[in-house]
């Protein structure tokens, strides 16, 4: 019954430098993940395709509940098999992760592909010293002995900015502050120099200044080690300055996808626009209520028939409720969006929307969902805009973090 810290069974996988062959590091193709529940099948991820190049950062953005966590865990193959239905392929560094058996997957996890979790308080084992939690992967994947691993762990802790790591290595997670804990988690994730790190809301629980420090640290380590990062967040502001490309998710689907600059300059999806508007800005007086998007994301067991955003979209037309807009390009080939009436310069192309004002009327979460869903009259009811999109373009290079 004794557990040993050794790789067992299976041939050692070889990871080719796929970059030279023109294939991206990660290629996700038509990924579906559903959960069987008592109420029905929850389609948490519903046909997602994306790629990540070596050394690049992909931001995945969406409201809470839009399927970001399920997506990142599905890509890794971390979801427990019970009651989960999965389809699609995930190719990572030349290997099809979806075809791997558990033993092979364990050779990839932690070594080539690792994960930073949202809440370090719950994601670090409360009764194990942080040193042990780092050395575990070093000993497993790199075959280090105890003292070698400990020395490496101390260096890792130093590199993530933990003071006097020689002592801290013997500490337990509860003895560290939230920011320190997240640094430890980064150290664990990066211990074996993986090629791709999934960071699922790595800074959500932290306060703003610490958030910036942690993200900067991550960016710096990423540059040094030339690793790719998938940065998952509900806050478009977090990825605005850090991601090379951004994927916007809504109700389990990608609704807009573009290089970061393009996304901010040529926003097409009303949902993306709404997310942008919920970014807290430093120029805002403190205490101001952010523009939250009225209504709630749809039920993933019975998603709406047409565009999934239609019940909350101020520009929704009959067509939006009838049929689902495909993810398509217009203009540049690397800019994809799913909308029948995309915005152009912040103005909807929907009929009756030419007045130049935008209509994300409701803020502070006080609005009633589905009001604009009454499609037949939507075009006549244009509520006055409390703010104007066109007036507030966001410059992704302006820097959203305090300097």
């Amino acid at each position: 019954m004794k557990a040993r810290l050794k790789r067992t069974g299976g041939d050692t996988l070889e990871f080719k430098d796929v970059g030279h062959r023109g294939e991206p590091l990660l290629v996700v193709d038509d990924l579906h993940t559903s959960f069987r529940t008592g109420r029905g099948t929850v389609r948490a991820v519903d046909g997602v395709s994306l790629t990540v190049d070596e050394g690049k950062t992909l931001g995945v953005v969406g409201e809470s509940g839009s399927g970001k966590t399920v997506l990142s865990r599905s890509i890794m193959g971390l979801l427990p098999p019970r009651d989960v239905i999965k389809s699609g392929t995930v190719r990572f560094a030349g290997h099809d992760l979806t075809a791997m058996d558990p033993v092979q997957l364990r050779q990839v996890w932690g070594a080539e592909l690792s994960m930073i979790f949202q809440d370090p308080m719950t994601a670090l084992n409360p009764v194990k010293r942080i040193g042990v939690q780092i050395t575990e992967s070093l000993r497993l994947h790199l075959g280090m002995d105890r003292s070698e691993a400990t020395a490496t762990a101390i260096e890792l802790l130093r590199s993530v900015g933990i003071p006097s790591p020689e002592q801290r290595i013997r500490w337990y997670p509860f003895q560290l502050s939230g920011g320190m804990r997240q640094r430890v988690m980064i150290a664990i994730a990066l211990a074996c120099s993986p090629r791709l790190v999934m960071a699922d809301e790595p800074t959500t629980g932290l306060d703003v200044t610490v958030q910036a420090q942690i993200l900067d640290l991550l960016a710096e380590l990423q540059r040094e080690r030339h690793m790719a990062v998938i940065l998952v967040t509900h806050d478009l502001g977090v990825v605005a300055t850090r991601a090379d490309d951004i994927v916007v998710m809504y109700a389990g689907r990608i609704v807009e996808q573009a290089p970061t600059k393009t996304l901010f300059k040529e926003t097409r999806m009303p949902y993306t626009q709404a997310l942008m508007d919920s970014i807290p800005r430093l120029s805002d007086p403190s205490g101001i209520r952010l523009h939250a998007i009225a209504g709630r994301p749809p039920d993933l067991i019975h998603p709406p028939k047409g565009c999934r955003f239609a019940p909350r979209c101020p520009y929704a037309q009959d067509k939006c409720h009838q049929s689902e807009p495909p993810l398509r390009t217009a203009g540049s080939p690397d800019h994809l969006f799913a909308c029948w009436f995309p915005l152009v310069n912040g103005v909807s192309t929907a009929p009756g929307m030419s007045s130049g004002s935008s209509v994300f009327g409701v803020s502070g979460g006080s609005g009633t969902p589905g009001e604009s869903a009454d499609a037949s009259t939507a075009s006549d009811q244009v509520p006055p805009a409390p703010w104007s999109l066109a007036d507030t373009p966001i410059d992704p290079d302006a820097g959203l973090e305090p300097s």
Partner: protein
Amino acid sequence: MAKYLLRRLIQLVVVAFIISVLVFLLVHLLPGDPAAQILGANDTAHNRAVLNKQLGLNLPLWHQYIFWLKGVLHGNLGQSYLNHTPVTQVISTGWPIDLELIIISQVIAFAVAIPLALITSRRPNRPVDNISTTATFGMLALPPFVIAPIMVAVFAVGLHWFPATGYIPFTQNPATNLHDMILPSLAITAGSIAVYYRLFRSDLISTLQEDFVTMARSKGLSPRWIMWRHAFRPSSFSLLAAAGVNIGALIAGTFIVEFLFAIPGLGYSLVQAVNQRDYLVVQGITLVVAVAYVVIQFLIDFLFTVVDPRVTRE
């Protein structure tokens, strides 16, 4: 750590003090003159005078207590009025037997409950799990005085595998002693297995859903390593607490099996003493068992500091 243990130690002393007061007062529950009651048929004026002096019964109450406590601390719990054996001697021959019974039963209980829970918690609601969960639910309704007679009927009277009564000291013949102890130990084990299994299983299941287990998986650690090195310890806190609470049930269990199998442990002596109105023996055993129980709780608290680093450092 030291501060935490010191605080617990002070609590221990306070509780032990209160126990001693209550046990002391037991004698005064007796209707009428305690000395006359205690002496019963052996009552002579001389005896009564001796006892009154020994218990200090003619002193004021608090004085009596100090007097009594002094004796207790010097190892003097009085003597049996039937055969004049010192109470301390009754206790010193009895306690190793209770301890042996409890240790054997707990070793068996953990040896069954823990591996079973480790197996079933990985795949809850499979047949093995459903059978174990149902069976242990039934075992919760089998206190020692219900299951012991069944075991005697089947294994001693029916199959003749074990003797129905009798006791041979371990020092005299270890093999026979252990063989004879199997049935009594098993009779008090059923409840422990059920409690430990159910608790550990449900805690393991919730631990395995924790983020830190997913995190451990994402490091590429093997399921076995994760189970032993990541999930086991955080799941064992309630198990440890339950083991402490369970001591009370075990004491009751040893009393039952000692009575049933005529094993001369503390419970056997206690029941005999009650039936023969040998009050000082009852008082002495009560005091010793109650204090031992509190000390065990203290030891378990100490174990907590070993198992969960947060207890003393937070």
